[in-house]
């Protein structure tokens, strides 16, 4: 059973990663990403008794987050609406326009991927260990590595060439 204090620690540890994961799923729609983030942690709290420790708590939370992003019917209405607020202040410099353009391109290219590949690359970009990613999406580790390398290549190509 997860206590309130444990839940707070879990939230502080994972919230920012899950927010960015959802941001990728929502093609930069921050409002939708925040809603999904909130929904993820509401479900974590509501179902904390059903977590039996068969997988790690990280895997369990990422599964919930990825499944929420995957199953939301409003996804079809999403739009790439990145604004300056989505760019970190530390990197806010003359290259800002360029960064914004590249991130827009990145969202667009991620959006071209199928649902599973989308989840794989978004988790990978958040530096989540590959074993956790494999458990989250339900793939063998070997398959995951090959798949990730292919997705990275196609994503780079898409961002550079625009397709």
């Amino acid at each position, binding site marked *: 059973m997860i206590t309130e204090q444990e839940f707070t620690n879990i939230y502080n540890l994972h919230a920012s990663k899950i927010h960015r994961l959802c941001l990728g799923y929502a093609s930069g729609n921050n409002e939708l990403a925040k809603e999904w983030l909130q929904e993820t942690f509401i479900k974590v709290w509501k179902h904390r008794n059903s977590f039996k420790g068969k997988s790690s708590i990280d895997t369990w939370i990422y*599964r919930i987050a990825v499944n929420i992003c995957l199953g939301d019917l409003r996804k079809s209405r999403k739009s790439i609406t990145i604004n300056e607020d989505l760019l970190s202040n530390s990197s806010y410099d003359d290259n800002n326009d360029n960064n914004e353009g590249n991130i827009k391109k990145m969202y667009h290219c991620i959006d071209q991927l199928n649902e599973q590949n989308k989840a794989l690359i978004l988790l990978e970009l958040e530096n989540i260990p590959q074993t956790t990613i494999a458990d989250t999406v339900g793939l063998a580790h070997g398959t995951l590595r090959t798949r990730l390398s292919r997705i990275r290549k196609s994503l780079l190509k898409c961002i550079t060439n625009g397709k």
Partner: protein
Amino acid sequence: MENDNLNKLWDIQANDISNFNPKDIITKAKKQRNGQYISISVMSLTVIVLIIYAFYYVFNQWNTFNLGLILMISSLTLRIILEFYSLYRKEKQLISMAQKSYFAYLKKYYKTRQMINFVITPICIAVYIFGFYLLLPYFKDYFSKGFYTYILISGFLSLIFVIAIIIKSTIKEQSFLKQLHK
């Protein structure tokens, strides 16, 4: 662009989650849970009252008014129970399945939903309308002409409103199912 730059570019995004805190989330989760308990209690109570009414009253004084009432309430109850059950099942799978299995489950889920939307829901609506139709002669006898007209108009308007909501959600679910099959 280098492979590493992909991560650098990704890291440029800021995290605007300042207006959330874990305590608020716990409060919201508790509120949601209480809401679910209340809905389930109300539904259970309705079903119990319906069963008691059917066994102890309707079968002793059987008439078309009772039949109409039973048809209306039971078709509505059945549809609501079905909705709750399918949402409960979906949430249970959401928290326990890996993405690959959940993706397959969602396809199956929305196919079943189509069956509910195109077969069970129209039957429930037809039964509801028939039940309402059986009540009308009684309403005509007991109420004034003005009030009877009001019941008639408001009954049909609310039915049209409900049907419009169902059609809207059916279209949404269908387009989502198409998206899943892409």
